[in-house]
């Protein structure tokens, strides 16, 4: 680890420095030393040939479910971190809806220690930052001891997979979190409106005989929280935006200066409710896949930057849990190992967004918006780097995932862009030919 590393011959794409050029990258003691043409480098440096490949700041995913503690048959901190690294991610934020939930300092601390312990053993993947619960037991009633959670390593608070439903509680959270300068992550859903719903409300749900979740279930809560952010000056981050209405609300709130950030998932910018036809449970998630109009609005918002970042909402489920009647199957799909490929195909290969733009959405922007010390290849920053082949075409084979779970609607799809190496602090956590 103390040996310097020199990445030679790559195309460095670092939007944080407006850089997109052939450059070498020198890493010393786990940090970026320099990014220049034809670096000679110290004689003991490990030289890695990355010609033909893109070298970018490691991807950041602020929305993953690692299932540990309590759901280890679906995923563990170790397997999830490794899957993240395989997907090019160097930092992931782990959601607190575990069992027990991450609503006290011991639980939060456990997640952080566990990830680090695996790294020390040489089996580490991406950095794992725990997100603390906003309310005790995720019950939506009483605040958790946020200061204590932050001290134990929490980087944000949320009640995800549940919404923070009580507006008074949300207000308190947006006020209180300012002391620690952390965001409140909101899974925007009005559960009275979405009750019993398993997919998007509309003609497809009607034909399939499934209960639907209307757009307003998301929009109403986004609107409320945008106003609360404006009122309090706090930072609300809207998770997995799925509706055109939410996009509009976020844009207007931003214009008024409210601290509202937002994320969209690769599946919401790629798929619609038609993916559910045939009762495919690997197309069942919350918020659901919606209409083409919604998909295009969310996609355009990502292109325009109204939605600053991509986040996967990686939600592993065991095969048998998804192998059941649609009503009973759990919500969620995995996403870490397909995110880059799906977004490259949907946004970059189609010409909608430049490669630099995508790197920004997947690395620089989350770092900026969430205050993460990453998302850049500036000299002095930790060497969290992704090296990938931007033109490689590959077919998704879920049984080869490093994740313990394989619930994905992208099985068999041809994607563009393949991760070849992921480095965290200069240490290679994933490499493939």
């Amino acid at each position: 680890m103390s040996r310097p590393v020199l990445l030679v011959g790559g195309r460095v794409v670092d939007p944080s420095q407006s850089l997109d050029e052939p450059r070498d990258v020198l890493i010393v003691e786990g940090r970026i030393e320099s990014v220049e043409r034809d670096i000679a480098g110290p004689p003991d440096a490990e030289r890695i040939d990355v010609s033909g490949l893109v070298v970018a700041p490691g991807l950041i995913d602020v929305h993953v479910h690692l299932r540990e503690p309590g759901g280890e048959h679906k995923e563990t901190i170790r397997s999830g971190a490794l899957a993240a690294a395989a997907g090019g991610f160097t930092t992931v934020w782990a959601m607190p809806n575990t069992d027990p939930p991450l609503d006290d300092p011991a639980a939060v601390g456990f997640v952080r220690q566990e990830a680090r312990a695996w790294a020390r053993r040489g089996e580490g993947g991406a950095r794992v930052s725990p997100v603390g619960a906003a309310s005790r037991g995720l019950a939506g009633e009483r605040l958790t001891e946020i200061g204590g959670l932050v001290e134990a390593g929490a980087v944000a608070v949320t009640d995800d997979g549940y919404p923070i439903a009580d507006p008074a509680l949300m207000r308190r959270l947006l006020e209180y979190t300012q002391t620690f300068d952390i965001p409140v992550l909101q899974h925007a859903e009005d559960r009275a409106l979405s009750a019993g719903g398993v997919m998007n409300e509309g003609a497809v749900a009607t034909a399939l005989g499934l209960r639907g979740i209307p757009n307003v279930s998301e929009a109403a809560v986004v609107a409320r929280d945008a106003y609360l952010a404006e009122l309090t000056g706090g930072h609300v981050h809207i998770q997995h935006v799925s509706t055109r209405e939410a996009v509009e609300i976020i844009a207007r709130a931003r214009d008024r200066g409210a601290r509202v950030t937002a994320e969209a998932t690769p599946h919401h910018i790629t798929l619609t409710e038609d993916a559910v036809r045939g009762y495919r449970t690997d197309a069942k998630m919350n918020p659901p896949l919606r209409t083409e109009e919604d998909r295009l609005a969310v996609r355009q918002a990502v292109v325009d930057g109204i939605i600053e970042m991509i986040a996967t909402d990686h939600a592993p489920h065991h095969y048998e849990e998804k192998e059941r009647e649609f009503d009973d199957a759990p919500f969620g799909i995995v996403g870490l190992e397909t995110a880059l490929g799906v977004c490259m195909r949907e946004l970059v290969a189609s010409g909608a967004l430049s490669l630099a733009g995508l790197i920004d959405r997947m690395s620089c922007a989350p770092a900026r918006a969430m205050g993460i010390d990453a998302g850049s290849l500036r000299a002095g920053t930790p060497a969290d780097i992704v090296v990938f082949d931007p033109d490689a075409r590959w077919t998704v084979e879920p049984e080869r995932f490093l994740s313990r779970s394989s619930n994905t609607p992208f099985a068999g799809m041809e994607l563009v862009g393949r991760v070849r190496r992921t480095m965290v602090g200069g240490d290679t956590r994933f490499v493939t030919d």
Partner: protein
Amino acid sequence: MSGDGVGLGLGKDLVGLEGLERKQILGILDTAEPFKEISERHIKKVPVLRGQTIVNLFFEPSTRTRISFEFAEKRLSADTVNISSTGSSVQKGETLVDTARNLEAMRINMVVVRHRSSGAARFLADRIPSNVINAGDGQHEHPTQALLDLLTIRDRFGAIEGRRVCIVGDILHSRVARSNIWGLLTCGAEVAVCGPRTLIPAGIEELGVRVIQRIDEAIEWCDVLYVLRLQLERMKGGYVASLREYNRVFGVTSERLAHAGDDLIVLHPGPMNRGVEIDSDVADGERSVILPQVTNGVAVRMAVLYLLAGGQPELAETAKGGGE
């Protein structure tokens, strides 16, 4: 044999009417005709499915549909096995998958399945080699019900094409409504729905269906009034204030039908809530074809079982020729 001996190409299963072609649906109705005659005989049995085992897998309680299927199966000389299982909410998923595996292991020829989850019939059909017939899956489809309804309408009017059919009631939760919508539209009927707005599902117009606000307007417009049962749970869900309110606004009463065209007929899938969605004098009156629906039910189910059990169209082609 006539020149039309080729099979209808229904495939292994009957999961729903969505996606069936007009000639397939009409072909099933045509096939039901001779089976009606068999039910009038003294010995109501033909040997065609002798030796086949059919399992009636009913996860939801049902008397009339299950008995109708059982009659149909026995009149075709098949052996029938009834399995009823409600299953706890936690175990439902395992139950269906495990049931599928068990059925496969037992080499059952045909399964008739009713289940509370939409998509359950498709789920089973995709996993076992037996023929699967959907007897009602959640709110999705109940194809044999719609087929017997179509047959009943055709019996009365000679054809389904051009008829105006209005389905009244809780469309949102009704698999019978959905199957009928698909079947009627495919066979060229005009379809409308009428009921409390709270019980009309989103996007129904996109399926090709009109929405009529008031029952009087519906009665004026249609030739066929299809009355759905209003379930008591709808009161709990807050969709309808009370049964009395429902009857007041949407009940099919003889007063309302007094202004209807002479040809208008009334159907109901049963069981009826007399005095709620339909008054007794209508249910028992001249416009009602509710009892013929039941008779047609057995014939239609015999036709479906027969067609699926013998679904080998290439061989049917060879059998067309040759006197014996």
